[in-house]
């Protein structure tokens, strides 16, 4: 079949769903897609000013390289630059969205914050204390304050343990409560995320993806943490379940004053849930701002390209799309100068040579771009850290 015909067929199918007679399915699909969040008009609410809010987590010059190949006695000479000099702060009770393409280092950044990985260099301060210098007892105490929700609800639960033992485990690890107090706590957790008491004696394989994700959320809540790293928590879920889980996360945030680092590649979800958004490209933050700044006034050409790639549930709407050329460059040998320059439509000669710093253009909106957020005087930054 000619490629052209194929495309016409797909468009027709799309038209039938979107404009045709199947009204029931359409409204359900759109409700789910929108969930109140796709084309929400953004009120020009400004985030609380940077000085007033305290940083719960401060990430300073964070670097994580993974060795590619290591021999028996030979040290690796190639490294994947997963996270390459990130400065970021997560403020108390905010939702910080972290977006970027697959493989840009989002998840690694989240795992570093939880000390599931050791950084190559740089610091992570949780309430002012560098988590990588803490001893094991102090670290164990700190682990009660930060938890994680995973993307894949099928691998995030131990298949050999009942829901009850999964939820009670964090309490046992930290020696919290007596047997009956733990039972009461687990029941309360289950109720909070919408599980019924009879679910507790079942094994994970007896649940659907959405229910499993609720179990994962309940487990993360068990220790009353302040910070939750949500690593693509809804990406693996059906669109209709997605909004339920998002709403649950928002309710819980309101009730417990939680701080979220919300990692996702789904921009419409991030737009809905985030207070501030950080855009990551090849191990670096390229743009950071509040939700309005990122979604309505993006500066970095990469952010623009990401935004225009969001599918709109309306076939009549023709967007002026910014199409990215080329593939994501290899994180083993990232491009010189600005990492985005090989795919950038705005590139100028400087971009090939000098790496742009993340420059604040006002109101807490910053971008790393020579064209859109130029720095007055550029001095060459060290390109890579040598280890």
């Amino acid at each position, binding site marked *: 079949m000619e490629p052209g015909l194929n495309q016409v067929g797909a468009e027709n199918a799309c038209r039938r769903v979107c404009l045709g007679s199947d009204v029931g399915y359409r409204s359900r699909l759109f409700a789910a897609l929108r969930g109140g969040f796709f084309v929400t008009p953004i009120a020009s609410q400004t985030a609380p000013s940077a000085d007033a809010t305290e940083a719960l987590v401060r990430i300073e010059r964070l670097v994580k390289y993974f060795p590619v190949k290591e021999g*028996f006695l030979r040290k690796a000479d190639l490294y994947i630059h997963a996270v390459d000099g990130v400065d970021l702060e997560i403020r108390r009770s905010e939702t910080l969205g972290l977006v970027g393409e697959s493989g840009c280092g989002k998840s690694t950044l989240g*795992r570093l914050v*939880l000390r*599931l990985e050791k950084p190559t260099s740089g610091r992570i301060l949780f309430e002012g204390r560098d988590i990588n210098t803490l001893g094991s007892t102090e*670290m*164990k105490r700190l*682990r*009660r304050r*930060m*938890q*994680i929700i*995973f*993307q*894949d609800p099928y*691998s*995030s*639960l*131990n*298949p*050999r*343990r009942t829901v009850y033992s999964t939820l009670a*485990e*964090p309490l046992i*690890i*930290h020696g919290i409560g007596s047997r009956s107090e733990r039972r009461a706590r687990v029941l309360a957790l289950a109720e909070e995320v919408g599980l019924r008491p009879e679910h507790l004696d079942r*094994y994970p*394989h*007896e649940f659907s993806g959405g229910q499993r994700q609720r179990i*994962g959320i309940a*487990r993360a809540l068990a*220790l009353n943490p302040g910070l939750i790293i949500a690593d693509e928590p809804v990406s693996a879920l059906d669109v209709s379940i997605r909004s339920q889980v998002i709403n649950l996360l928002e309710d819980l945030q309101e009730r417990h004053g939680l701080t979220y680092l919300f990692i996702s590649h789904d921009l419409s979800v991030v737009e809905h849930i985030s207070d501030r958004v950080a855009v990551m490209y090849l191990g670096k933050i390229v743009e950071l701002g509040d939700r309005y700044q990122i979604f309505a006034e993006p500066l970095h050409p990469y952010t623009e390209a990401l935004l225009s790639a969001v599918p709109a549930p309306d076939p009549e709407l023709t967007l002026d799309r910014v199409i990215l050329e080329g593939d994501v460059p290899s994180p083993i040998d990232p491009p010189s100068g600005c990492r985005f320059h090989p795919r950038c439509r705005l590139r100028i000669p400087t971009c090939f040579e000098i790496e742009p710093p993340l420059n604040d253009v006002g109101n807490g909106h910053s971008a790393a771009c020579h064209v859109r957020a130029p720095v007055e005087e550029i001095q060459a930054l060290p390109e890579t850290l040598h280890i």
Partner: protein
Amino acid sequence: MAALYSDFWARLFKNKLAVAGLAVVVALFFVAVFAHSFAPYPPDLIDTSQVLEAPSKQHFLGTDILGRDVLSRMIHGAGVSLSVGFVAVGISTFIAVILGALAGYYGGVVERIVMRFVDIMLCFPSFFLILAVIAFIGPSIYNIMIVIGVTSWMGVTRLVRAEFLSLKERDFVQAAIAQGASDLRVIFIHCLPNAMAPVLVAATLGVAHAVLVESSLSFLGIGVQPPDPSWGNMLTEGKDNIEIAWWLSVFPGLAILITVMGYNLLGEGIRDTLDPRLRR
């Protein structure tokens, strides 16, 4: 076992060869445990009037050169074979699980040391290693159990390490670490129960191997010492009279064959049942 394997037995019973293997294993177990009730004569009852009798109604499998009943001796020998098999496999599985778990979970230097040690052990032809060690420390049934155990853990160690390598990256293990679980807790509660399926298969096949090694050692005269009966030393005694008394060699030989086959069929049946790619 978890409900994940609730249909384990149902699926195992569909495999006819595995059922045959299981039947042999269960039957041998009962014979070994109740040897005194099954055996028609005491195993060391010498009757010089009944020397080298062919199989008959009094002696179903004939008698040996001292007039002892072959069937009774074989029934008592079953216990020797099985206990050597189980204890040796118990020792090797224990070593393998501990070393494999440490290597797979901690990686780095620990892994390199353990895996190089595995490679070194695999360089020795294990049967000759066992022969040499037994010759040095002296033959006894306990020495055989220990020596077979400490020379047959390498394969399972590799298996356990491979399972742990993939398990430690799984999200539920990472979640346990993020909650502050100790290494012991992560290894024994989260990783090990999920790594047991291939270990169970390897252990079943390992019993067959251990039974065979014990028989070989006893046949060579450095295993179970006469007058204690074992299938291996019965073969040795039988080989001198094989032209005139075939039953002395054939029946112990058959017993070894059937036992080893039974364990192999059962082990392969369990493997096929647990292998998700073969699920229908």
